[in-house]
């Protein structure tokens, strides 16, 4: 009899500390139904989760949300990550995070800060965020981050309204003192799916954006690191979503549910376990949701016999479900998928309609 393949050790934990957020971005990838404040895990639970995560092999924790600064215990949470030996990355809108709290976070051992900026043009940025004055606050907080000596990443989510200003965004990030900038095309999950027609760029825009990023990388080599998240509706090969299901990362929701990826709850029939009832180690190794698509045994054709199956892992399970209606088929983004034409049909639906904002 064959011994079961050893379960790999995860590298990263996405800790969604809260779903509360002052912004209303139309591309939000959080689910349509949010966890409310009363259901959020308490400080002690996060302390335990971080300790268990480090024991499992996790090296980095991404403190996210919602807006993580909506939690008053954020400095204690950062300290717990540091005490557990984890590298902590704060993913923030910068709205509602005061310089005083930021200093407390730095003192608690925070390693890195990532601030989202919606556009290089302030008016457009505030419109996208659904928050007047957001852009100015973000720039001010970015300066505080640099002043404290913390490394800064600027994250720009790219879509039709700002795709022409990638060069200006990179200039802005350089001006703010960022060491790294993320040019992340919208991924259509959660709330973003509701706004797909209003956000979707054209193929020509995407091709130009990819060329711009390449040019900027060469131009600014050694000055700033430019990471790009590809716009997969125009791709021929799928992204290796979360580096493979149950392989490299895990995600804890505000209420303590542990997901193999951020959007996994859209897939019907998956059983997720909660840190309130199970240790993180048990969840990683034994929860039905993590084992549902781990490895390659679950695959069908064309993935099953594909030479790239250990590279892209069949793409994204959520996208397979959302577009093809079946989480077990190849990600329709792949040109070998029998459902590939559906992706082009969806990308062709582009309407200049008003955004649907989250109101929380």
């Amino acid at each position, binding site marked *: 009899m064959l011994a079961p393949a050893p379960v790999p*050790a995860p*590298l990263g934990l996405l800790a969604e500390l809260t779903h509360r957020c002052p912004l209303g971005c139309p591309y939000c990838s959080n689910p349509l139904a949010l966890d409310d404040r009363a259901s959020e895990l308490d400080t002690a639970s996060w302390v335990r989760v971080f300790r268990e995560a*480090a*024991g*499992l*092999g996790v*090296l*980095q924790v991404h403190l996210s949300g919602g807006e993580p600064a909506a939690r008053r215990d954020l400095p204690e949470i950062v300290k717990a990550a540091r005490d557990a*030996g984890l*590298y902590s*990355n704060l993913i923030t809108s910068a709205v509602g995070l005061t310089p005083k709290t930021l200093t407390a976070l730095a003192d608690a051992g925070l*390693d*890195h800060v*990532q601030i989202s900026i919606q556009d290089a043009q302030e008016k457009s940025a505030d419109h996208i965020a659904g928050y007047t004055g957001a852009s100015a606050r973000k720039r001010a907080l970015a300066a505080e981050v640099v002043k404290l*000596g*913390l*490394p800064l*990443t600027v994250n720009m989510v790219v879509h039709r309204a700002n795709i022409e200003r990638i060069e200006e965004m990179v200039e802005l990030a350089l001006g703010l003192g960022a*060491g*790294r900038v*993320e040019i992340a095309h919208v991924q259509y999950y959660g709330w973003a799916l509701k706004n797909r027609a209003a956000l979707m760029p054209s193929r020509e825009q995407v091709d130009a954006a990819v060329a711009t990023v390449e040019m900027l990388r060469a131009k600014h*080599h*050694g000055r*700033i*690191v430019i*990471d790009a998240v590809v716009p997969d509706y125009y791709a021929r090969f799928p992204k290796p979503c979360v580096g493979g299901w149950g392989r490299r990362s895990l995600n804890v929701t505000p209420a303590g549910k542990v997901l193999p990826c951020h959007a996994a709850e859209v897939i019907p029939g998956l059983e997720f376990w909660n840190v309130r009832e199970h240790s993180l180690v048990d969840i990683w190794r034994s929860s039905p949701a993590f084992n549902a698509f781990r490895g390659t045994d679950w695959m069908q054709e064309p993935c099953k016999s594909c030479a790239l199956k250990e590279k892209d892992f069949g793409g994204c399970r959520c996208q397979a479900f959302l577009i093809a209606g079946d989480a077990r088929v190849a990600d329709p983004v792949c040109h070998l998928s029998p459902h590939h034409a559906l992706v082009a049909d969806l990308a062709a639906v582009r309407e200049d309609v008003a955004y649907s904002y989250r109101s929380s």
Partner: protein
Amino acid sequence: MSEQQTALVLPTSHPRLPRGVRLTHNEAQGGWVLLAPERVFKADTVAYEILKRCTGEASVDEIVDDLAKAFAGAPRERIHADVVKLIGGLADKKLLEL
């Protein structure tokens, strides 16, 4: 796609890990790792021996001397080349300050 190294590594440079970059040991990951913003690098023995000396105290020259002493038998030029390559590559990625 090979990128040209742009950082100039001088014998008098004092390399050090900047804030936000840490060298850590993790048993479950099987050894030493360099942690940075959204990045994890596994450090092999050579990388580890070089990186642990990048404290800002020692110059590149002193690091090479120290390594030559610790690994008697390895030619100094070879060690020097390894050190410059690793340090220069990491400096380009902003994972090391010179």
